[in-house]
């Protein structure tokens, strides 16, 4: 069983870092707090018995995506005058408050118990080998999405190269 204090520490740090990303005026500091938020979410994955996803979160989000975002900040350094709010500052606040209230009321009042349909592993076991065999499972497999993901990555790489190529 996951100790409650671990969840609360990770949750408070994650929400604090996310709020700092939005409210921080310096874009580079916002990116660093985004990295902190990604790391705490990797910790939350560990508390949820998702060891492979925690490793993938650190490798992909902390290692790759945040580096790309910092590249974007550095390459547009000439115009960085903080990150101001747009005209939608207060309407967006109302919309997001309403969305949060609706989501939380649904999450708290619904009974989420159900019979799992698919491959399961006992709590405490490593998930990586089971994930590998589940993607190619005969009955519950994800073979077509797996192929489409490969094509999507190839298309994204080619698209990015074509977009930034010097004419």
């Amino acid at each position, binding site marked *: 069983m996951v100790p*409650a204090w671990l969840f609360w520490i990770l*949750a408070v740090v*994650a*929400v604090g870092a*996310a709020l700092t*990303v*939005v409210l921080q005026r310096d*874009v580079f500091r*916002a990116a660093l707090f985004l990295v902190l*938020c*990604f790391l705490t*979410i990797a910790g*939350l994955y560990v508390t*949820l*018995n*998702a060891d492979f*996803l925690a490793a993938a*979160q650190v490798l*992909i989000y902390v290692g790759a*995506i945040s580096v790309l*975002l910092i590249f*974007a*900040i550095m*390459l*547009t350094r000439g*115009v960085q005058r903080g*990150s*101001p*709010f*747009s*005209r*939608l500052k207060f309407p*967006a*606040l109302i919309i997001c*408050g309403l969305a*949060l209230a609706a*989501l*939380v009321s649904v*999450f*708290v009042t619904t009974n*989420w*118990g*159900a*019979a799992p349909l*698919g*491959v*399961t*592993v006992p*709590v405490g076991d490593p*998930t990586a080998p089971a*994930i590998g065999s*589940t*993607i190619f499972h005969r009955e519950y497999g*994800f073979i077509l999405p797996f192929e489409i*993901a490969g094509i*999507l*990555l190839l298309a*994204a790489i080619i*698209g990015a190269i074509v*977009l930034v190529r010097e004419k």
Partner: protein
Amino acid sequence: MVIGVEHYLVLSALLFCIGLYGALAKRNVVVILMCIELMLNGANLALVAFSRYLAPEVVLLSGHIFVIFVMVVAAAEVAVGLAIIITLYRSREHIDVEKADTMKG
């Protein structure tokens, strides 16, 4: 107090709404991209929480595989987003969404 699925779901809703607020209310394209990543992470957290707490003492792996696909899409999105930001900066010398309104009717 025992931590249940509701705790993780409320946390994921908080992360999603913070990201939504940033994506709607910010002017810098890079910050909007960061906030979209926050929203994707909130959704991922909900998926992993469901796969852990749907049935007691087992982990359902479908949620984990969905999260892997979301990560693939997020990586592709950031790569294309970076290319669009660089193209916008080259042609316009700014990355402000309020000034990029050529196609506004």
